[in-house]
């Protein structure tokens, strides 16, 4: 049995990192990720981890060092937020294309500008095409659990892709919650030993990483990356089950709540899913057929699984905490709507952009969303495809 601790999201992440005990951790401080790095630095200073910590001069170098370390056969981790992730951008794509299982905690924060340090998902959503697996966490517990599972997912032989585990800046990163941790031994047994078959440090069988890849091979290599992403869906499910057997907390591609028999469903990612959950519980008690679909894995996008669980639902509202300027709605909305396109009787799907730059969202607003969905099912008419919650207009 592990311990029950009061931890913030940043601390829970640092605790998971301590137990994972990566060979290399390269990081640069940025609010609201800072506490994770600070805490981990203490572990290094006390000598309770074997990790070589590289205190880089920028996030660009953080990701570069992680890439080098992973190519050298080390387990490499980092953590960042917003502008830090943006500075890593170039190298994120390269890390995925080299099939290096780097693990990164992304503490979601609005991507400038103007500068803002609070939560929205514009940072990680912007990186959604970089080739990284993306797992969103609802609370501190999930941030901890997801990070440990991420190691296994990334290192799975047929996957070998980098994974980012995200959680909401301040809302989760700085909120103290009850977190059940595993024993150190349980974690190290669960994640096992990492062996990179193509290590740069294997000087007797030299490998070349990052050659010039022209039109005669590049496309096939991209196709392999696509394949690995697709395969990772079942790997994520398998590891979610194994983690459940160990901890009692089971994970699937989505975290569903009261979807059986639900007619009105909200889709949300991150901490807002928790807020929606409390509304669903309340409305269900009153007999309303409402439900929640929690986005956990956004990349790869579990389109088939989502279409299945939403079958029979009358109206869906997708909450997006980021904007894709000039697009037909937020990133999650576009994916969900597209996933439902082939359904014989697809539900009405609307989008709400909310919480940009840390704007709070409360139960009243969520209740209003369910009301709107109810109206849509009655009038059979969508007045506004993309709306905004909590915005002064």
């Amino acid at each position, binding site marked *: 049995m592990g311990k029950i601790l009061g931890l913030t999201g940043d601390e829970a992440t640092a605790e998971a990192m301590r137990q994972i005990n990566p*060979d*290399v951790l*390269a990081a640069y401080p940025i609010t609201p990720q800072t506490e994770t790095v600070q805490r981990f630095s203490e572990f290094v200073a006390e000598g309770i981890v*074997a*990790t*070589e910590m*590289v*205190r*880089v*001069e*920028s996030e*660009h*170098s953080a990701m*570069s*060092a*992680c*890439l*080098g*370390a*992973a*190519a*050298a*056969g*080390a387990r*490499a981790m980092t953590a960042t937020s917003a502008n830090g992730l943006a500075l890593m951008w*170039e*190298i994120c794509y*390269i890390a995925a294309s080299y099939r290096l299982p780097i693990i990164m905690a992304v503490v979601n924060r609005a991507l400038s500008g103007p500068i803002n340090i609070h939560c929205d998902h514009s940072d990680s959503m912007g990186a959604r095409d970089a080739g990284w697996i993306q797992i969103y966490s609802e609370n501190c517990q999930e941030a901890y659990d997801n990070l440990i599972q991420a190691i296994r997912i990334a290192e799975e032989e047929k996957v070998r892709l980098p994974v980012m585990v995200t959680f909401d800046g301040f809302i989760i990163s700085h909120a103290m919650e009850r977190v059940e941790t595993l024993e150190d031994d349980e974690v190290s047994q669960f994640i096992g030993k990492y062996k990179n078959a193509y*290590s*740069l*440090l*294997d*000087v007797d069988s*030299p*490998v*070349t*990483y*990052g*050659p*010039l*890849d*022209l*039109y005669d*091979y590049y496309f096939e290599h991209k196709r392999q990356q696509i394949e690995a992403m697709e395969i990772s869906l079942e790997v994520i499910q398998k590891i979610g089950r194994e983690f459940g057997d160990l901890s009692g907390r089971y994970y699937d591609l989505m975290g569903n709540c009261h979807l059986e028999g639900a007619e009105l469903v909200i889709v949300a990612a991150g901490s807002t899913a928790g807020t929606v959950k409390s509304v669903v519980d309340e409305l269900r008690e009153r007999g309303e057929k409402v439900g929640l679909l929690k986005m956990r894995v956004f990349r790869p996008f579990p389109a088939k699984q989502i279409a299945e669980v939403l079958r029979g639902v009358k109206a869906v509202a997708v909450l997006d905490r980021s904007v894709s300027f000039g697009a037909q709605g937020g990133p999650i909305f576009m994916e969900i709507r597209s996933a439902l396109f082939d359904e014989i009787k697809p539900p009405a799907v609307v989008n709400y952009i909310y919480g940009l730059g840390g704007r709070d969202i409360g139960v009243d607003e969520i209740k209003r969303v369910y009301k709107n969905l109810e109206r849509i099912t009655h009038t059979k008419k969508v007045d506004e495809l993309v709306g905004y919650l909590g915005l002064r207009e």
Partner: protein
Amino acid sequence: MPSLKVLSRKKELLTGGHRLCAGCGASIIVRQVLMAAEDPVVMSSATGCLEVATTIYPFTAWRIPWIHCAFENSASTLSGVEAAYRSLKRQGKIDRTIKFIAFGGDGGTYDIGLQALSGVLERGHNLLYICYDNQAYMNCLSTSSLIMTEDGVKRITEVKEGDEVYAFDQKTYQLVLKKCIGIFDNGIKDVYELTTLHHSIKATANHPFLVLKRNGRGKKNNFVWQTISEMKMGDEIVVLKNLDEGESFKFDFNKVKKGDYKVNRFKNFLIDNKYFEIEKVRDIKLVRPEPTLDLRVEGEHNFIADGIVVHNTGIQRSSATPEGAATTTSPVGKAIPEGKQRPRKDLTRIVAAHDAPYVAQANPAYYNDLIKKVQKALSTEGPTFINVLSPCPRGWRYDPSLSIQIAKLAVLTGVWPLYEVEKGQYRITYRPKKRHPLREWLESQGRFRHLLRDENKGIVERLEKQVEEKEKSLLALAGEETSA
């Protein structure tokens, strides 16, 4: 140190068959460096000539573990590898002794990669960073281009060194035959399609074309080289008359009129010129990234591709480009007769200012000195740095067989002093008895040719003064006396 004879028996760790140019300094430097290393080496390279030309998938020229990530992070990528090594060694998961060497060009080191390098130096990683400094961003035509040669039209990929290709004589506006002295693989670049009434050509944005500049009534018109990125619709460029694609046809030199051709102000052609005319640019659009090649033509630095007169492409200035050098982004003009106007960044001293335990400047012409420095660096604990001058026949414009001679001139003329900084102590490792005049260096390369004109005497004097000042300050740092 073992003799060169002994060292040369070592297995080549950079194999032949890579696609670096003949006479390229980079491969010579890499081979000297790897010869010097006694322990197994893991190397990283920044994006650049060395990386592109040695690892075209599915081939690699490296017999050592090697990694390339991006342009600006050779240092930080290798710092991760080195951190992994330290971590795994401490955990008892690895017991070999391995050395780490990061390579970067001047662009990837002086400019975009300076921050990553600085970070590595401050963090104290146990690695050697080597900058192969060819003093500019070296750089072209799409591989589908058709080139006018003595034997008719050929695809650029079929042109061989030594072939006679047609060029445009910029003084007489005549068609002339010139020898092709080099063909260069420029890798994948964004390619633009430029279209005139009768012609279209694919080339990179920095590829120069010959553009007619009309200077108004009563004034003589002239031609200027402009890159695609500097051109706009309606610009008038020099093209060849009546090009039949793929058709082989002979030029009759006797039919080419000598003398200064005039440009008709109303009709867009060169009066009485049988082969060339002027056409307006109708369209410039980005096609796609494509593999690109470039030719070097002796004497006239142009050739005729797809019926359009184009310049050898070449080099863009970096902060390592010396003052007075002509590059495609620091060209020589009426207003700026010297080319690059600012002195180069003194990176070696910037690195020394980080208090790195071992910093040096080397040159492949002085291989003993270079090898010794590499061995010293590799046996020093902590971050070390060697800045190596890397002659580039293409960018510096000289015959590829002269690379080592030219590298030597850099030392003899004081342009590239050989020294090392050990624990803060400067020491000059080789000093010519008498410094050769800077003119010898300038005369050896096409990039400085404009400086040799009489009207640029003042600029040369200024540059000479700079070399003198720099030498003086280096001597002072090394505690040596200035020669009379």
